């Protein structure tokens, strides 16, 4: 048509592009081969420098060439400053080709570190430019940290830098995380006045966008500062059970070191909070006398004393930790008031956004930190909502809720020496903190949603009666070597094969076993098989 501009067809354009590419590839391959052969011969000259530069500027991810380049640079001795500076500006062009090139950033770090008169301000501004283009470029973050360290940028200035980045985009884990490394440097003692402005900052973020995870994670870190859980270290004697972190234990009985074998409660555990040993036969023959036992923990240079009083077969001692401190640390008055006001803010947000999972979870954690028993009802209600709004993670919430329920039940036990532990009908999906229940003789877990008795269950060395009716238990691994266990109630569970009952054979005293309502009872000749597996049992309900 008249006047219409004629344009090359797509095929023409592609043909041209293809030819262009072919030509480029030819040059590239020739240069590469030249480089390799030069390196083989150990030549470190200007030409090699130029060849590698030519290749790297089109493909900055060629690690071998960077290595060769470093070899050449180390070889050069004259005008180091000038050559290295040229190297830096060459690297800049490589970073433009690929801002996430491992090779380029690593090389830049190497060059900067060797530069006789480094210009750190320039490097910082380069990082700023890169981060303004992509605030999550972790290569740049890494390099920046190196620059900051080498040039000694003051911490408060760096904090200001994160202020700036968070201000332009607060969905940025890198900036928040950097902040969490800077704050403790600036204020090692977690001073509340500073934290207040910090709380304000992060609140602004999660009120603006409550679905953004980065702020919530930072918030949890901030709240968690100074709430580290205490590790309690109790000791319990019996046939001899000691609660400790690891092996390296030495037993002294009435002043006499004893040669004993320590073992964990289950062969699966190499690390365990509970260790058992058998006393050599005859070491305590007369229980009419008082005996003093000491366990030395050689690794940590600590020891624990315990007395077995006249006429007793058991004794117990534990750290002086109060019940309140079992699962959380004591809060200072200031910390408590901060947490209270944070809880208020979160509740305010929850009113506006009743279905926000991050807010609900944070509220639960705050309530746990402040008053686990007082807030139990609210906590349970929030867990219910959480499971509904975030059904993908409902199992996680169930497990977390189980943990909190068990903690609360333990807190409610009036004395540590209470021997009966009952936690039925609480929707438990998992068992934990079993190391707190070493003395329990009677445990009631009925009507929960447990699927298994985990190996840790073997810590309940005093257990005589187990009630676990109406669960979904299909695995009894934890019923291992429980030497005092006599009665097991497993009505209406999900035990389906004889092999599942195999662990019970390691418990010598079992007399009564209730298996009604389990699939295993439908097996042929089940009675005969059970009689063979568990000869001690006199009373089996099928």
């Amino acid at each position: 048509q008249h006047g219409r501009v004629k344009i090359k067809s797509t095929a023409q354009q592609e043909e041209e592009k293809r030819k262009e590419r072919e030509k480029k590839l030819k040059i590239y391959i020739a240069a590469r081969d030249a480089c390799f052969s030069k390196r083989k011969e150990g030549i470190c000259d200007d030409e090699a420098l130029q060849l590698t530069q030519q290749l790297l500027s089109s493909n900055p991810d060629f690690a071998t060439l960077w290595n060769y380049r470093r070899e050449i640079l180390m070889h050069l001795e004259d005008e180091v400053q000038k050559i290295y500076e040229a190297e830096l500006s060459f690297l800049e062009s490589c970073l433009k080709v690929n801002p996430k090139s491992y090779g380029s950033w690593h090389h830049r770090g190497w060059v900067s570190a060797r530069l006789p008169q480094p210009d750190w301000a320039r490097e910082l501004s380069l990082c700023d430019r890169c981060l303004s283009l992509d605030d999550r470029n972790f290569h740049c973050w890494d390099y920046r940290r190196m620059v900051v360290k080498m040039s000694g940028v003051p911490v408060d200035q760096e904090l200001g830098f994160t202020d700036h980045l968070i201000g332009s985009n607060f969905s940025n884990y890198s900036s928040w995380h950097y902040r969490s490394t800077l704050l403790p440097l600036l204020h090692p003692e977690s001073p509340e006045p500073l934290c207040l402005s910090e709380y304000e900052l992060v609140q602004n973020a999660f009120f603006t966008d409550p679905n953004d995870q980065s702020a919530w994670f930072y918030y949890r870190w901030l709240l968690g500062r100074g709430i580290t859980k205490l590790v309690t270290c109790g000791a319990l004697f019996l046939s001899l059970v000691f609660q400790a972190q690891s092996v390296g234990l030495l037993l002294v009985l009435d002043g006499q070191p004893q040669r004993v074998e320590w073992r964990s409660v289950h062969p699966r555990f190499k690390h365990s909070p509970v260790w058992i040993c058998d006393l050599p036969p005859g070491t305590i023959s007369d229980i009419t006398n008082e005996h003093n036992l000491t366990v030395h923990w050689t690794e940590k240079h600590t020891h624990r004393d315990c007395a077995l009083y006249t006429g007793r077969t058991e004794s117990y001692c534990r750290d002086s930790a109060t019940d309140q401190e079992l699962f959380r640390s004591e809060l200072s008055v200031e910390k408590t008031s901060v947490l209270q006001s944070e809880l208020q803010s979160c509740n305010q947000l929850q009113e506006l956004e009743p279905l926000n999972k991050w807010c609900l979870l944070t509220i639960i954690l705050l309530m746990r930190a402040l008053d686990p028993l007082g807030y139990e009802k609210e906590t349970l209600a929030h867990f219910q909502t959480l499971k509904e709004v975030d059904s993908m993670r409902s199992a996680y919430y169930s497990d977390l809720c189980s943990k909190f329920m068990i903690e609360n039940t333990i807190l409610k036990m009036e004395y540590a020496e209470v021997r009966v532990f009952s936690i039925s009908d609480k929707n438990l999906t998992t068992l934990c903190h079993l190391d707190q229940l070493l003395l329990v003789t009677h445990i009631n877990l009925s009507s929960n949603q447990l699927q298994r008795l985990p190996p840790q269950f073997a810590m309940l060395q005093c257990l005589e009666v187990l009630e676990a009716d109406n669960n979904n238990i299909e695995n009894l691994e934890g019923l291992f070597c429980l030497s005092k266990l006599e009665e097991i109630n497993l009505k209406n569970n999900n035990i389906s094969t004889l092999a599942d009952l195999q662990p019970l054979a390691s418990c010598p005293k079992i007399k009564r076993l209730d298996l009604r309502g389990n699939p295993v009872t439908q097996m042929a000749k089940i009675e005969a098989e059970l009689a063979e597996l568990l000869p001690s049992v006199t009373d089996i309900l099928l």
Partner: protein
Amino acid sequence: MAAEDLPSEFDVVILGTGLAESVVAAACSRVGQRVLHLDRNSYYAANWASFTFNGLLTWIQQHHEESQPEEVQDWSSLLEEGEELIYLSYSDSTSISNLQQTADSEGVEPTADLPRPSAIQGQSEASRKKISYAQLVKEGRQFNIDLVSKLMFSRGSLVDLLIKSNVSRYAEFKNVTRILTYRHGNVEQVPCSRADVFASRQLSVVEKRKLMRFLTSCLEETEEQQGEMNIVFSLFLCDQQLGDNLEHFLLHSIAMVTEDTPTEVGLASTRHFLRCLGRYGNTPFLFPVYGLGEIPQCFCRMSAVFGGVYCLRHSVRCLLVDKDNRCKAVIDSRGQRISCSHFVVDSSFSLMNFVSSCLPPQVSMVTVPPIAAGFPVVMMVELCSSTMTCLPGTYLVHLTCQSVGSAFDDLSPVVTKMFHTPETDDQETRPSVLWCLYFNMADGLDVEVEGHNLPSNVYLCSGPDGHLGHDHAIRQAQLIFQKILPEEDFCPPAPNPEDVLYDGESLLPTGGGGGDNSGWGEKGEETKENPQTEE
């Protein structure tokens, strides 16, 4: 340009180089139509133009002078069998009225105070130096003062068209950096993007949550909103229990509508604003460097690259219409008959008034709600010198509103509130006005493309409308293009210069141009510059 005769035959003749006309010109040339594009002024872009300070003074001068009635000539010798003459009469002067400069410009070199670094927020007073009127005139070339104040919505139809057609390569743009509003006697920042809301100091965290939630729900078009359609937007906002702060921001600065706008319109407008956020920055607006007058010129340039013929200071006197009421040809201001299949003309029919005034002072957009009952909503755009529209150290401020009375009556109360003028005697921190011009311009919003008892192949382009964006003009251009060439693609992407095939067999630079080698037709030459382009 040269006094040679124009070719006597074109497909489309376009009179006026306003935005819509220029887009039509580019679109037609791009698909191979022979386009003749004329403008009776010596500058491009008609009422969309940007002027240097001196250029603006000349423009004022012209509008103060009485327009001389054109002598009616007898063109009957050029008529063919069965044709009729329709004279085109221009009423351009009626589209601009109520011109008024402030006293400063009249004075003999008065030394005006200089605006602060950021005029609107009236920050530091450190860099106070004197700029005289004479200096303004002397440095006048550093100004590019728009007649119409508009901003480009970053997802509006203009930006989409610039990108689609590759015309964007002819211009540079800057982001508007902040959205402000005038409230309780103060200028406040309007938090609109996520980062703004996060950083805002004037909002409580609860307000932040409410605002973000409202904005997010706006984007989603929920059913709940559908139920509320029968009330006005301000009441709808009230029902959302957002609080005064947020209602003000949403109504005036984000939706940019009035109290009695229907909810549907308010929500659509809010949605548009939000969708434009984040494409190029934290505000939804772009501004072309060197002023808005650049945009029509960019389209003209595209047209010229594809063979469009350009001629300024050149007009059309009359149309030659056949018995079927179709325009067969035009007679230009030199008495030449030029046949054409379509004729597009800028309308000079004034229907409503809207006002723009200029004041010398970051790129900010400020919404000013009615300062009292009966006053209009004023849209204010403050341009810094990096937009290449004013002298370094000064700011260019445009105030625009739907006029109620004359420009001076409508706008001067706002000016007095926000700036230091000779009328305000208090020497406080507000920025000073160096020079100020008020005028009314006809609103082109209600001009229809066809009708008006015009021949069926003659189309009207309206002048600038009172809205902030450019949608109206672009829509109009598209409509006209579709009427002229219903089968053709509207502004398809222009090819890269290296992909253009030059006619190897022809040695003539304008090969294929019908033997016309007069230099009018420029084809495929990237180097073509618009004569009007500064620098």
